[in-house]
């Protein structure tokens, strides 16, 4: 019995360490993949660890989450998924307590001010084994549902977009690396005829931009590649700007690929509407305290070639990979739960996450 436990522990360690190393070495590309793999890891954690009460499970998952977030603080979807799972478990816990009929005030949905006036919750008692297995199954199922939700994000977003794009419009997108945007455009083409401008995203995503344009062309959409510097000049002819995001924070601000910030400022100047497409799993309950720390800096060799010895010796180069877009610059977020104004993001966050989990 203990051997099996030890083996399970070791397996778990292997899983954890492998995943953390992959995160650190950035071998998992894209927020989507990170989210899926985190969820799968959590499924295994829930099934492999020994826990006798939900509180125990919550604390161990919190610990794991903290490790993951420390390993790669800028893989935001990882932390988001962990917090979603924790919220699911806490919901389970609440349901349990409701059925047991303990304190009554706690059934209020997050009346947090009133929490000041209510006594602390009593700890749930230990359940028997079969109860735990049931819970385990329930939780695993909910995590699997979460994975399904993540997988279907694109499809749900596509569905909403028919009303957003009209014939003979020119759309501009500064994030060619977003799969969501690509699928959306392809789907929209089936009903409408429009033009798309793609910015080049030099120096990090130029190849991606070209590939994106090619794929759009293959879908029979008229595509124009635009250098990053001439966005303001062409903005007058653009009717809508569509932006893909990496992460959206509780205040409505978002982290996107670099270059987007400039594009949305140009759009604002021209009063052009800006749509951001994002999945629910990209919504983070955290507040972006320090905007500079959100941005990852990449390979300086892309800005100044490593071979140019004089420049390398004497000039400092920085290559920011991300941009922070403040909430005022986005008009609406299109998510798989509907269209949300940036002001309202906090509400969605409250619905899906629990206050206690924000600081893992």
């Amino acid at each position, binding site marked *: 019995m203990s051997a099996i436990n030890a083996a399970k522990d070791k397996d778990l360690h*292997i899983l954890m360490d492998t995943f953390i190393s992959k995160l*650190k070495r950035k071998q998992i590309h894209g927020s989507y993949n990170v989210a899926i793999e985190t969820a799968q890891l959590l499924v295994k954690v829930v099934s492999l660890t020994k826990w006798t009460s939900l509180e125990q499970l919550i604390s161990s998952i919190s610990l794991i989450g903290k490790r993951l977030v420390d390993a790669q603080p800028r893989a935001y979807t990882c932390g988001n998924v962990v917090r979603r799972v924790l919220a699911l478990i806490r919901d389970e816990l609440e349901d349990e307590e409701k059925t047991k009929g303990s304190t009554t005030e706690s059934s209020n949905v997050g009346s947090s001010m009133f929490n000041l006036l209510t006594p602390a919750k009593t700890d749930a008692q230990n359940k028997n084994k079969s109860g735990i297995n049931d819970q385990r199954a329930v939780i695993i199922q909910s995590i699997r549902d979460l994975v399904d939700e993540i997988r279907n994000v694109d499809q749900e977003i596509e569905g909403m977009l028919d009303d957003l794009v009209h014939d003979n419009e020119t759309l501009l997108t500064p994030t060619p690396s977003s799969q969501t945007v690509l699928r959306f455009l392809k789907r929209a083409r089936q009903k409408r005829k429009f033009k798309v401008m793609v910015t080049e995203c030099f120096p990090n995503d130029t190849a991606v931009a070209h590939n994106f344009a090619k794929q759009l062309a293959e879908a029979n959409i008229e595509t124009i590649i635009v250098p990053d510097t001439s966005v303001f000049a062409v903005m007058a002819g653009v009717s809508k700007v569509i932006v893909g995001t990496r992460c959206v924070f509780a205040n409505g601000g978002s982290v996107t690929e670099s270059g987007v910030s400039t594009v949305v400022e140009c759009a604002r100047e021209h009063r052009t509407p800006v749509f951001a497409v994002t999945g629910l799993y990209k919504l983070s309950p955290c507040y972006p305290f320090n905007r500079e720390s959100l941005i990852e*800096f990449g390979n*300086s060799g892309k800005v100044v070639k*490593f071979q140019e*010895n004089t420049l390398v010796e004497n000039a400092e*180069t920085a290559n920011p990979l991300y941009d922070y877009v403040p909430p005022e610059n986005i008009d609406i977020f299109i998510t798989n739960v509907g269209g949300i104004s940036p002001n309202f993001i906090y509400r969605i966050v409250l619905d899906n996450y629990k206050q206690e989990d924000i600081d893992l």
Partner: protein
Amino acid sequence: MAPKSSSKKQKEVIKKEKLQAVVLTDDFETKFMPLTATTPRCLIHLGNVPLIEYTLEFLANAGANEVYLMCSGNHVEPIQQYIDKSKWSLPWSPFKVQCIISLEARSIGDVMRDLDNRSIITDDFLLISGDVITNINFDDALKYHRKIKESDRDHIVTMITTEATSNHRSRPFDDDPSVFVLNESNNKCLYYDAIPPINGEKSQVSIDPELLENIDDFVIRNDLIDCHIDICTPIVPAIYSENFDFQHMRKDFLKGILTFDLLKRSFYVYIAQQEYGARVSSYSTFKSITKDLIQRFIYPIVPELNFYNNNNLKYESNHIYKDKKVVLAQSCKIGYNTVLGADSFIDENTEIQRSVIGNNVKIGKNCSVVNSIIFDDVQIQDGVTIVDSCIGGDVVIRNNVSILHESVIGANCVIDNDMVIEHGTKIIAKKPEEVDDGFFSENDEDEESTDDNKPIIKVEKFEEIGDVLVVGPNGVGFRYEEYESDVEDSSDADSVHSRTETGDIHALYKLSTLALSDESIASVGSSVGKNKKKHGHKHHDSISGLSNKKSGRSYSTASQISNADGSNLNPEKQRLKEIEEFYVEATATIERAIDNNHDIDTAVLELNTLRMSMNVTYSMVRRSTLNTLISKITNYVETNTLKVNEATNKLFGQWGILFKRQVFDKDDELDLLDLLNEICKKIDAKEGDNHQQLNAKQLQFFIMRQFYDLEICDEENIIEWYNGSQKSEDASKKIDNKYVEQLIDWLQSAEEESSEEEESDDEEEESDDEE
């Protein structure tokens, strides 16, 4: 990466192809002294991460399954302990790591031979140096290797390189800035040479035209950084075993096989495009790679990746990295390109720019640290300036010290108040050996510092470079000397005519290291007896234990040796140096012959070879022979073994014949006598207080008599010489020796007699001594 067996069950899925990796942790050079006195080279921290971690991280990314660390020398223990404690020994480490100890190894070749003996290698393996930092995608390189293997059956090694430019800062200027001559179509390596930097004057590579036969287009690449990552076939260790004198990977193995080998084995070069790879081989590459790392040219290997578990660096704009619990005073300024280790404390008004600060470092007020690397646990007090330097671990630097460019303070040193550490100084806490060679007189005994905690007060005996002058009255540390080519090569300290102008210390210090290092003993002989030497090539191997590579004794006047700061010696100085070297060599040769009782012919042969190879005149040969013999005699006399005449007779009796092969005509004889005179006068002039010191005048007499007896010098010539000297205006030639005068008188009388007797044959009249 974990093997794919990361499923819930304990199944072990055996990969079809197991990738083995061999890590060379030691390259048997002393470039990083004095830092390597306390830590093994591969555990030196770059950006607060031990060098070996970068290599192991690369191996993990590359998918290695078994990693063998080849350790040797006295650094085996620390490396083993480190690996045992690290995350690579945990059961969920991506590969199995094992330390292989080769205690007897003195070079990379020895290590490879040891590897061959153990028969560990089963398939293509990765051979990598322990101090490589890279972000290349290994899979591509491996694919390339496999593709080449299919097309070329003789392929044995793929060398991985990255592109830079010829002058790039990350190219190792002072060591191996290799030039590859490649076949343009398939990057097959046709020739290899290591040339000095562009600033040096040699800018030519000599290639045997045979190598270029049948090649359409070849390209000479002087812009590659050799990453020292090789994908080798299993036959490689066997090749090292076959060729017993292969010591170095590139200079011997690569070059040797390319130029000499009959079997036509081939090497290919894989040039990683747009990726970074470099090896830390010397201080200059250490510094430039640190800069590359901090400036994020090696993305995704960046300091805040924290793959070394002890670190928790966070990135702030302007390339500033801060670890946990860094405490900064309000007025201190942190410039860009800086790394601050955990628990560091920087006090008021201090400026830190473009530097790496290790963990637990305390820096006082009003300091300035620019472009430097400070390792862990260092304490720096107020008012200190550090520029362009390396400060080792656990060092204490007191108030108002200035440490100027390119200095290295080894671990555990203490620099006292108000000291100025000059440009290029290296300070080591303990002297490398505590051998009592007998050169240390009694006064010096109590200065041996074995306890670093006690302040050492040096006595004046070790003056000029004494530690009081270097580290201050309460400091700990000795100057560490490297054997730069601009420092005079000392002759043996036995010689009374010490050629070191820098005082006894040098000779003593160097000699003591000479005594311990195998290379040095081999070097003297090898330089004479080596037949493999091709004309015009340098031999770095010989003195490798002591000196920088570039200061290898060069016998070819076509090449230039440059100093540490890259300046060149002019031809005259060059020549003088060569002559100096010759003297040393010749002396050593003769001594050896005497000590080991070689036969005359051997000795003569050796001397001749030496003479011809170094292109010196017979006069110099004579001088050195004479010097040697005289010094031997001196030795006998001073140690009270023999009296002057006995000593002379003994030695000259046996070895005087050497002169016969060196003196051919009258001029030579005169020259010989002049030399003898000069030498004896010098001895005479030296007023030693050793009353055992021999009487130079007597010596001259005895030797001259020997010359006469052995028929080396004709009596006529001796007389002529004497007269000529007395009459000459040159005061130094005048002979003031009553013994010699007597000899001359006797000779003259003998001559008259013999001339009266119409030159009979018996000139062998030995007259008994007059006094």
